[in-house]
């Protein structure tokens, strides 16, 4: 399940991916530009830095930038760092398994199917790069593009 944390983290990365290579962005600017509470964003960017997706510089001229080219950063990799194992429901994970109070995991068909679903999630998210996500056109552009194709 993509949490708010995961969503905010991806938005912040898209923000950074739009900047010219090497240019730093202020946390305040990323926060206001994407409607993210600044304190929360500080924590998120800190985790992304620990995982090696962004770099930071301190001081007046400081800020954040991508640590690697946007086409090398895969969305699935970022989501695992922010939200933990990819899983549609909390019980469908092997390392962060959370038992449901109201069912038996050995016989729960829902969990079995969801374990399969997470493989599909990984397949999609691990194939798509931050650069691809950045370049996804908005809804309007998309419908226009579809019309042209049709």
């Amino acid at each position: 399940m993509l949490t708010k944390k995961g969503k905010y983290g991806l938005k912040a990365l898209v923000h950074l991916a739009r900047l010219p290579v090497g240019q730093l962005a202020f946390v305040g600017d990323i926060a206001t530009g994407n409607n993210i509470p600044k304190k929360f964003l500080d924590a998120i960017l800190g985790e992304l830095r620990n995982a090696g997706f962004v770099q930071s510089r301190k001081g007046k001229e400081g800020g954040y930038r991508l640590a690697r080219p946007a086409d090398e950063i895969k969305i699935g990799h970022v989501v695992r760092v922010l939200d933990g194992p990819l899983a549609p429901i909390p019980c469908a994970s092997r390392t962060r398994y959370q038992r449901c109070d109201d069912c038996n995991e050995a016989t729960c068909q829902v969990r079995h199917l969801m374990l399969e679903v997470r493989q599909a999630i990984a397949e999609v998210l691990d194939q798509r790069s931050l650069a691809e996500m950045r370049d996804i056109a908005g809804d309007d552009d998309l419908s226009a593009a579809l019309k042209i194709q049709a």
Partner: protein
Amino acid sequence: MTGRANSTLPNSIIIVGGGASGVVLAAHLLKAPNPDLRVTLIEKRPHFGQGIAYSTLLSAHVLNVSAAGMSAYADDPGNFWRWLLERGLATPEQAPVYAPRSVYARYLKELLDELEARETGRLRLIREESLSIAPTGSGVEVALANGTSVVAHLAVLATGHDEEPGAGHGHAIRMGSEADTVLDPEDRVLVLGTGLSMVDSFLSLEQRGHRGEIIAVSRRGLLPSPHRKGNPIKLDVADIPLGTQLSYFVGWFRGLIREHQKAGIDWRDVVDGLRPFNQKIWQNWPSSAKRRFVEHTKAWWDIHRHRMAPEVYGRVTEAVQSGRIRLVAGRVVGITAGDEFSVQVQSRHTQNIETFNVARIYDCTGIARDISTTSNSVVRSLVDRGLARPDPLRLGLDVSDNCEVIAGDGTVSANILAVGPLTRGTFFEIDAIPDIRMQCARLGKRLLG
């Protein structure tokens, strides 16, 4: 995916190197029903299926993987185990069995004999040294040492590990090579490396009745761990952080081991549970993480991941305790040759230099070696002519995810491929049969459908 799949399938394939990787690849290629398929296996040694790893006759040189994991076939994991049982070489209650490597060589030989008998016309064996591979208009031509050559649509390099020592300032030799002449049993010897190859050398020396001290030197002086019966934990790719910096991954993995140990699960089960994903983890790391791993973490990883049979571990630790083997963490900074070798080793911990006078220096630094200095003629000639290049970390040859050799200018070759240890830069853990058979199965499927 490639254009080839749409046009015609290659129906002649040369495998350069008839050691374990070459035989396993031939077996997987011949699974294709194509009646026009021609597989030519070229090996310079008198025996196929042995290579360096399985040519030892010493019964103490056992496989480092239990018999249950050593099948030559990716889709029939129990093949070797059944073979052992059928011949009375093991009984079911003995599992896990670490069979002598000479027995494994026999398994591969029988497998190849069977293929040769069944696949008349489709499989051809040539006992000769290959010198070079040259692209032709429609494929490749492999030149042999006897002056003849063989042509095919494509060639797959399966030349395995280097035969010549890569370390030791030109003074170290390989155990069992021609230079390894008779020693005085009381002589002190020095071994470069403290891993599984050092253990093999120790066992060989024991067998010869050698009694002198063995000084084993590596950067950290670490001995590999022993195997223990267990069940690998189950993981999905969705559980594993990919593409992060190395420190983040190591932190996650240590945490995973800690949690499982708290629940009474052995660390080996966690390390082995990660195995199906090791290639994926490696391939998704940024190059900085790969480099750091090779420099700082690999030595630790290796002693936990590449383990030895419990009985062998018992013999080695006993020898360390009794002082027969002395493990030294340090770096060789100089070697002077005279009546003896005088080897200067700088300690990792104190930085002090200690000098060891030894009768012989054995190279057991393992398998990683800069490919552009390889002693293998075919590989060297490819690199020299710009048809191949070392991978960025210089662990092997640069190849694509599809095993295609990448030329000096970055061009991906359509008809020169590689499997096994040569492809370490791309596939990382590709030295052991369980990984090599997967690679061969995938390659066979891609080439022949």
